[in-house]
């Protein structure tokens, strides 16, 4: 957690610009429009921002791989209408906070970037099916690129906390775009930073390095997010080694709770049959075997 956390005090009540409205009919349900208060919302590098928010209890039940559907404020010429999905990057039940790591892409994320400490954040969730339980994993291979890190870091942390070993491959365009390296190292993960700049992120080079690690200390599970190349590589390994692989997928969403079927991606099963599954409801974490692409 960055020291900026101290900027705002979570005990200060959320300013009631729009008084929080909790319909009686929705009290006590697992998925809620959580009214959070932004504590930190700061750039971590040229591409990404980290947002920490004080959140109600319902939100703090989020598990690694789950996500929230965030209401994004208007800004400039932008009037984002639908919410935007964001993986949970960290949950701290003790501090009462949830954290997102996000890249500013378009209208919605530009709006999120304008939120200041003290502002309200409407985070609908927690949503979706996260990663398999971390317990019992002996050695997890994590293959993350770019925004994939936001999604995978909490699972790596959870496996480490449950006593498993984690090798986290962090792939990025350049060294200074690598994020969460310290956080992963701090919880005992072995981190392997590879970049386009120095050529180490090339798939075949990576394939050889990981195979060597596997030869020494076999992996018994793989998680990946953030790149089609890494997803293919992860699937190759999962098949070759006979271990479960999981991928967290992305797709633009409307409802985020399985109502609208807008967020489907094609999957191809063992028999070669293509089907559409909802990223929000059937995922966003899927068995790597059947996924066809990470994002459009």
């Amino acid at each position, binding site marked *: 957690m960055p020291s900026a956390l101290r900027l705002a005090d979570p005990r200060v009540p959320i300013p009631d610009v729009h008084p929080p*409205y909790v*319909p*009686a*009919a*929705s009290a006590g*349900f*697992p*998925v*809620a*429009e959580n009214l959070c208060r932004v504590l930190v919302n700061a750039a971590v590098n040229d591409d990404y921002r980290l947002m920490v928010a004080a959140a109600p209890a319902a939100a703090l039940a989020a598990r690694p791989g789950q996500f929230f559907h965030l*209401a994004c404020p208007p800004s400039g010429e932008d*009037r*984002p*209408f*639908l*919410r935007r999905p964001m993986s949970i990057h960290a949950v701290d039940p003790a501090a009462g906070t949830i954290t997102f790591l996000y890249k500013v892409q378009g*209208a919605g994320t530009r709006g999120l970037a304008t939120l200041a400490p003290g502002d309200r954040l409407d985070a*609908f969730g927690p949503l979706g099916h996260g990663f398999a339980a971390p317990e019992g994993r002996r050695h997890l291979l994590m293959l993350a690129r770019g925004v994939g890190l936001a999604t995978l870091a909490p699972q790596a942390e959870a496996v480490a906390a449950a006593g498993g070993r984690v090798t986290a491959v962090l792939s990025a365009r350049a060294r200074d775009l690598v994020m969460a390296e310290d956080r992963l190292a701090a919880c005992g993960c072995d981190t392997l930073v590879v970049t386009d700049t120095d050529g180490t992120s090339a798939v075949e080079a990576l394939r050889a390095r990981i195979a060597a690690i596997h030869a020494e200390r076999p992996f018994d599970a793989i998680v990946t997010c953030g790149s089609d190349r890494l997803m293919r590589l992860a699937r190759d390994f999962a098949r070759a080694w006979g271990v479960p692989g999981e991928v967290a997928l992305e*797709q*633009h*969403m*409307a*409802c*985020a*709770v*399985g*109502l*609208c*079927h*807008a*967020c*489907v*991606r*094609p999957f191809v099963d063992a028999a070669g049959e*293509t*089907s*559409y599954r909802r990223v929000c*409801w059937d995922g966003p974490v899927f068995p790597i075997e059947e996924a066809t692409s990470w994002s*459009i």
Partner: protein
Amino acid sequence: MVDLSVRIGSVTLANPVMPGSGTLAEGLADVFDLGRLGAIVTKTITPDLRRGTLPPRLVEYRDATLFAIGIPSLGPDYYLKKTVPFFARFPTPLVASVSADTVEDFARIAARLDVPEIAAIEANISCPNLRAHGRAFGMDPVATRDVITAMKAATTRPVWAKLTPNVGDIAGFARITEEAGADAVIVANAFLGMAIDPETREPRLGNVMGGLTGPALKPLILRMVHQCAEVVSIPVIGCGGISDWSDVVEYMLAGATATQIGTATFVTPTAMPRAIEGLEAYCRRHGITRIAELIGAMRPRGGVPTAAIDPVPAKVSA
């Protein structure tokens, strides 16, 4: 106590708020008590199994969204075995929505769903994505009449006709469905729209065309509801761009007996229970004991627009 109930023919709803077909599913039961709704309307099913349209299925556009989902359908067997029991746990009337490629298939699926757990069957004759260039049953007066007539003959359940707004004379279509025996008319499904990316020159939707929904379209559908309510005596259910209680009131004043909420649930997942609570507060504030009083209760404009002050000079004292 405010009486929020309204009657759609033989079906009494605890309140005038229900979801638009295709915008409610099991997932919403994790968010609020679906038992609070006036009715539960499920996604359209077809006799055959369908995957739905090619992604991308969604474009956000100002206060509107353009969707091309198609009808990913698991068919009536799955519906009766899984969907009906799931929603039967709620005390709320369950409304099934159906579509088909032929009049006979509309009748067949209506017969198949003639079970007591289903309070009414919605005929989605208006889905714009199934046929080339969106021409649907609902754009053809004869096909519209035939579908409703065949369904009424095939089932004992009330049949609600969901009209398409992509017609010139919606009131004419409402009358046709009433004459064919429909128990209610839903006004309306989504407008057919399209978007192209100027940079790639490609259509933004996998299906090229899709349904435009959301608050920006409310004035159009409200006008249609008003036109329909003036010519039919079966209940009109308003559907289009409703975000909150005030929109529900507006539709009822225009002549709707009840309303369906679609896209708003995507923006505010608790939009429906919020609307119900808001309606109760509105009625209290206005001393309305039965919400049904609002149906068609629009007033003529009261203002005296010309000569709001006397143009004839008053005697001046000074």
